[in-house]
C-alpha cells in the first residue's frame, strides 16, 4: 500500500521523451561514486538542451537556464539518493527524466533505511506545509549556530530558486518487508 506526500503524478512510460538511468548504490564506496553524480547530472542537462532549439538570444537564454536547472536538480537528487539509500538491501538507485511541453519531471527511486524513514517524512511534511522561504533561512541560521545539519536545503533550493514542485511516494518492495522504496518527484516548469 503506497503512501503519497504532496501532489504525486505517476510516471507515464508513454511520454514522448524520457530517459532513465540506473545505478548500483553499493558496488563501490560512496566517495568514489560521488563524482558520477555530477557526470550523470551533466549528461541529463546536456541531453535536455536538444529540446530547446533556436539561435536567437531568448532561446539561448532559455537553454542555458534549463541546462543549469537540470544539472542542479539532478545532482541534488542523486546525492540524496546515494547518501540515504539503505546499502545492506542493495536495491538500485534510478533517476528518470520525462519531458512534457511545459514541464520536466524527475523521478528518483531509492531504498530508505527504516530508522531514517520517520525523520524523512517529518522533513517532507515541513517542506509541504511551511513557508519555504522562511524555512530555508531558519535551516541555515540554526545550522550556522550548530543546532542543525542544514537538512533539506537541496529540496528548499529547488522549490525557492527554481520554482519546482516536489512530491514523494513511499511503498514496500515486492516480497521484502525490510525496507521501503521512496520515489522523489520533482516537477520543473520550463
Amino acid at each position, binding site marked *: 500500500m503506497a503512501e503519497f506526500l504532496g501532489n504525486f503524478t505517476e510516471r507515464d512510460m508513454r511520454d514522448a521523451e524520457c530517459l532513465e538511468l540506473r545505478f548500483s548504490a553499493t558496488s563501490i564506496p560512496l566517495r568514489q561514486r*560521488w563524482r558520477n553524480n555530477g557526470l550523470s547530472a551533466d549528461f541529463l542537462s546536456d541531453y535536455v538542451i536538444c529540446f530547446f532549439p533556436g539561435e536567437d538570444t531568448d532561446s539561448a537564454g532559455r537553454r542555458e537556464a534549463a541546462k543549469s536547472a537540470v544539472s542542479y536538480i539532478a*545532482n541534488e537528487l542523486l546525492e540524496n539518493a546515494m547518501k540515504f539509500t539503505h546499502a545492506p538491501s542493495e536495491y538500485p538507485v534510478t533517476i528518470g527524466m520525462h519531458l512534457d511541453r511545459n514541464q520536466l519531471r524527475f523521478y528518483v527511486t531509492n531504498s530508505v533505511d527504516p530508522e531514517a524513514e520517520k525523520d524523512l517524512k517529518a522533513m517532507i511534511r515541513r517542506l509541504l506545509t511551511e513557508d519555504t522561504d522562511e524555512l530555508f*533561512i531558519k535551516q541555515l541560521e540554526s545550522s*550556522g549556530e550548530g543546532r542543525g545539519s542544514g537538512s533539506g*536545503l537541496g529540496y528548499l533550493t529547488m522549490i525557492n530558486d527554481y520554482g519546482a514542485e516536489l512530491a514523494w511516494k513511499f511503498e514496500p518492495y515486492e516480497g521484502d518487508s525490510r525496507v521501503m522504496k521512496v520515489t522523489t518527484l520533482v516537477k520543473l516548469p520550463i
Partner: protein
Amino acid sequence: MEIIQKDYQIRYDPHASTVICSGSFRLTGDEYASITEILNAAADAKPCELTLDVTALQFLNSSGIHTLSKFVLRVRGHNTTRVTVRGSSKYPWQHKSLVNLERLLPGLRLELE
C-alpha cells in the same frame, strides 16, 4: 591559504581580503571542512571589507550553499566586516541562489557582472 584540485579551487588572499572560489563544488558535506577552514580564516581576520569572488564558480551543490551561508553568518556574528560577493551572470544558478546571502547578512553587496 589555498586548495587546488582538478575540479575546484579556493584561494584566500589576506592582503586583498579576498576569497576566490572557482570550478565546480560538488563535495560531500564532510569534504567541505577544509574549505570551511579557509573561509573561517578570512572571516576571523575581521577586515573592514571582505570580497568573496565566485565569478568563475560554475556549480555549487546544496552542501556548498550551506558552507557559503555559514561563512556569511560567521561574518555577521563578528559584526565588523562589510562583504561584497562578486559573481557572474554567465552562470544562471548564481542569479537564483546568491541572493539568499543578502538575506542572511543585510548590507552584503552582490555584484553580478
